[in-house]
């Protein structure tokens, strides 16, 4: 290795070091610490009773109704919101792609839900569905507290997520749509394919990788749902998500041992999801973004 390449390697590492060290210190190290804490009976309200108990915390979490209920709630919210977002995102992207007048206006308006604080969005929808302050009951001629019942509470939560994040999906898909050559669509049209056939046979297959990347990001994001549930129900009506369970154990009840076991299990779930997408659907993230 010449002196020049050695110097280049050194400079490269030097420039990356601060970022890499920060990322390791604030994610990898606390994750290992969580793993360590999860092996202890460790409740900050009774710090004297701290003792090593191996995997007992995990057994307690996995044996509890709360964990499995929260897992199924989270999976339900994730699947429902991502599925709706994908369909709606496609509709929005197609509208932006085809609209001649007002394309800029549509794009600008869509950036508003993306930019708005999640807590604010959740508040706005909560007040809108609220029987005392809201306009939705009056509009639909309904009575009833949406957030006081499990089914309708899920509806409000999912619809808030959809409103907030469909923009992201739509903008990614729009960028993907511009990669589909017009000539190909014109040729299909000449061959007698109608709009629906053109979409499913030409556009969709060409956009496969963009769709998969968008789905991966949105799925992992939806799986971590916290803000909306916290603001709208705080987990009441049996709507707790996994992040809410983790937060309650760690910060509300200060049970660092049990809470850390929940944290580690959530991390493993996210890891499994990412692995399913990347291995199972063959998304090669590193290659597509590499210089």
């Amino acid at each position, binding site marked *: 290795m010449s002196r020049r390449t050695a110097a*280049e*390697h050194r*400079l*490269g590492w030097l*420039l*990356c070091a*601060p*970022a890499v060290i*920060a990322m390791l210190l*604030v994610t990898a190290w*606390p*994750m290992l610490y969580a793993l360590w*804490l999860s092996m202890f009976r460790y409740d900050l309200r009774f710090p004297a009773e701290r003792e090593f108990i191996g995997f007992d915390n995990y057994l307690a979490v996995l044996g509890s109704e709360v964990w499995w209920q929260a897992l199924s709630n989270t999976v339900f919210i994730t699947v429902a919101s991502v599925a709706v977002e994908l369909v709606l995102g496609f509709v929005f992207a197609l*509208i*932006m792609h*085809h*609209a*001649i*007048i*007002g394309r800029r*206006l*549509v*794009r*600008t308006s*869509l950036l508003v839900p993306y*930019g708005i*604080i999640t*807590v*604010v*969005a959740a*508040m*706005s929808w909560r*007040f*809108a569905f609220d029987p005392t*302050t*809201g306009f939705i009951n*009056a*509009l639909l001629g309904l009575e009833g507290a949406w957030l006081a019942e499990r089914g309708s509470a899920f509806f409000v939560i999912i619809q808030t997520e959809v*409103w907030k994040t469909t923009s*992201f999906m739509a*903008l*990614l898909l729009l*960028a993907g749509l511009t990669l589909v050559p*017009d000539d190909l669509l*014109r040729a299909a*049209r000449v061959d007698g394919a109608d709009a629906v056939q053109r979409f499913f046979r030409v556009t969709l297959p060409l956009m496969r990788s963009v769709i998969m*990347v968008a789905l991966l*990001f949105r799925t992992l994001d939806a799986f*971590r749902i*916290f*803000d909306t549930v916290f603001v709208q129900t705080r987990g009441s009506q049996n709507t707790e998500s996994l992040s809410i369970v983790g*937060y309650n154990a760690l*910060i509300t009840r200060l049970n660092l041992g049990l809470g850390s076991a929940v*944290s580690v299990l*959530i*991390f493993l779930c*996210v890891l499994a999801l990412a692995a399913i997408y990347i291995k199972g659907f063959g998304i090669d*993230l590193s290659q597509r*973004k590499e*210089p």
Partner: protein
Amino acid sequence: MAVGDSRLERLFWGAGSALVVAYALIPVVWIVSLSLKRSADLGDNRFLPQVASLEHYAAVFDDPQFSAALWNSIGIAGISTFAAVVLGSFAAYAIVRLQFPGRRLILAAALSIAMFPPVSIIGPLFNMWRTLGLYDTWPGLIIPYMTFTLPLAIWTLSAFFREIPWDLDKAARVDGATPLQAFLRVIVPLAAPGVFTAAILVFMFAWNDFLFAISLTSTNDARTVPAAIAFFTGSSRFEQPTGSIAAASVVVTVPIIIVVLLFQRRIVAGLTSGAVKG
């Protein structure tokens, strides 16, 4: 231009556009309208206020809790953005311009942190910050915000830096510019749009965060706006301070909407860079 432009199709897409705009803006108009209603009208179930009043804005700005939170949010998000963009620029420059082993590893590590669930580390951070005296302080939030936005900064900046014709600085040097002049006059203006885009996206993340904000703070010392809004208390314990929450929400949403209006092209380019380019 898309295939086929009959009049009917144009009408169809036009109507669709109007619906999308309405869907995107209704909750925003709603919260503005709620914030302008008089206290007595908050329960009138109307979409628009009968009489506009600024009483809730006056109340919110009178509330020391909100002013403190606003200041904390601006300071914490601002410093986190600066730190993430500086560190991200170093890393992105090295990744794009230099050959060294581990470049791919850094990009992969950054990507895995982007997928990392923050709830998994709030417990350890809570415990560590208590020991280190960082609990309920600005640095206590700046450190996690900077870290969680570094992946975004590195990816966005690398995507932009890759498009820069770096050899232009050599040309400037040939023309007699000093290295510093070449860097300041040629490279900085070329890199600025990318840096700016990364800064906007990072700022939005820090401005939006809620989980770290409620887990790692407890008082006005470092509590940011999203946390303050969620824990607003009315004049009595049993009264929901709907009007104040709405007014506070509008106050923190306005800057975001201005940024979106001014820089929409950059935001879209930043969001889709990397994900689509192949």
